[in-house]
């Protein structure tokens, strides 16, 4: 296993499947009465959050505690981009404390890479979302959720070969979309991005995904197994990416009508928190096709698996 998890693209197919398989084992732990393992006893894990994200932080924190790590929450809100050196100062402080792993969430793309490749800190770095770049543990939990829905108890050892995944919404600013296209293609899935042209990168030739503007047409022609709706951030609403929220919801939102157009086995995913009535309607969000809550549950298992993988074993080359 590698020392850090910075990008979903760092993982080979074998490594990705191994993490998903370990997460299966972890999910069993999460089902039992004593949900705790002694695995990371004596290890210190720091949750370094420069950006607010209660959900992601709680998910990591539960994962760390279930593995018996000592957990330090370091919330450095408001000290990110405005004060240039704060990342370095903070990192050196954490190094002095003796952190074995740092889970970092930051509003600047590449912040986790900078931390990993600086000599400020020696521990493992886990990217918990960097700007509009990547969110690899989200991609892993999404892949885990898909695999479980598709293969059920037969999941261990399996990849996602031939699975068609449509990711819909603000691709341009989405770290979830970036990490997912990398991981899903590694696992053999076929990725389709659907977005208004203003919310796709001007040059998306580096993406391992097919591009579409028209959601209904894509649903009809591609018949996806998985539809993943992305959250539309509030700050996009008034920046002329699209005329009105109403128009966006009508053309690119998921609703009961589009749910009916899916094949019976298809699932609808969302990384949360949802803007109900905007990118997803209540009927879809609450339907049995929706995996929103499973994704939350699986997030803990995946993060346990990642922590275990990075902090155990012989380390291969730094990625």
């Amino acid at each position, binding site marked *: 296993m590698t020392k850090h998890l910075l990008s979903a693209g760092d993982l080979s197919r074998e490594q990705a499947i191994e993490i998903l398989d*370990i997460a299966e*084992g972890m999910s069993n732990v999460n089902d039992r009465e004593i949900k705790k393992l002694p*695995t990371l006893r004596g290890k210190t894990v720091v949750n370094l959050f420069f950006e607010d994200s209660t959900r992601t932080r709680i998910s990591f924190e539960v994962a760390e505690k279930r593995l018996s790590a000592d957990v330090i929450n370091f919330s450095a809100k408001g000290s990110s981009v405005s004060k240039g050196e704060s990342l370095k100062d903070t990192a050196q402080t954490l190094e002095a404390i003796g952190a074995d792993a740092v889970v970092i969430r930051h509003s600047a793309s590449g912040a986790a890479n900078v931390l990993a490749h600086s000599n400020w800190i020696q521990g493992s770095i886990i990217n918990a979302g960097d700007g509009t770049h990547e969110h690899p543990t989200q991609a892993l939990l999404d892949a885990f959720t898909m695999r479980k829905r598709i293969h059920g108890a037969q999941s261990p050892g399996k990849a996602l070969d031939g699975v068609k995944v449509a990711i819909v919404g603000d691709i341009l600013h989405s770290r979830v979309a970036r990490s997912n296209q990398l991981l899903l293609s590694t696992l053999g899935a076929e990725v389709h991005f659907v977005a208004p042209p203003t919310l796709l990168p001007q040059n998306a030739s580096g993406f391992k995904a097919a591009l579409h503007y028209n959601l209904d047409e894509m649903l009809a022609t591609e018949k996806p197994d998985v539809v993943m709706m992305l959250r539309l951030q509030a700050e996009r609403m008034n920046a002329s990416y699209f005329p009105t929220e109403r128009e966006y919801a009508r053309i690119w939102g998921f609703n009961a009508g589009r749910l009916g157009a899916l094949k019976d086995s298809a699932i609808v995913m969302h990384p949360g928190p949802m803007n109900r009535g905007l990118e997803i309607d209540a009927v879809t969000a609450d339907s049995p096709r929706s995996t929103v809550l499973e994704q939350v549950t699986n997030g803990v298992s995946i993060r346990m698996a990642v922590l275990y993988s990075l902090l155990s*074993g012989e380390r291969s080359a730094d990625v």
Partner: protein
Amino acid sequence: MSARTVLSSDDIDRAVTRIAHEILEANTALQKSGAKNLVLLGIPTRGVLLAERIAKVIARAEPDVKPEDLLGRLDITMYRDDLASNPTRPVTQTLIPSQGIDDKVVVLVDDVLFSGRTIRAALDALNDFGRPRAVKLAVLVDRGHRELPIRADFVGKNLPTSREERINVQLNETDDQNAVVIE
């Protein structure tokens, strides 16, 4: 290095049968009934296979017992104390028989008993699943060199070895023969 077979296929069968009967005897003494309240937990990988074999012998001796009622498996990966120095191990599933382990006599089954650290981890793991009435240990081979105060209750064969030697247990469910080999 030359390999030397120390237990043949027949030797292994005999050892398994003997262990099964010893377990029944001991349980009768304890619970006044052969397979009642008995749980066999194999430690992956080969401990699981041995536990299955033992369960079959017990089922033959006690016709009202089905092997699956006794059998479980206990993955101890996450309880090891050598996390950073060994390769990442895949985590396998832990299965506890439907009767649970509370107030049961649990027999841990492994292929080789060496330092005792695996069994220490297994005892920790067991703790998180319930409170057995007693825990016993069955191993096919005890090769000595204990690093912890742990001892097996049921032993197929005691094999004095040097620390450098490797004991290789092969079972035909996963290997191409049944044998115990010293390398």
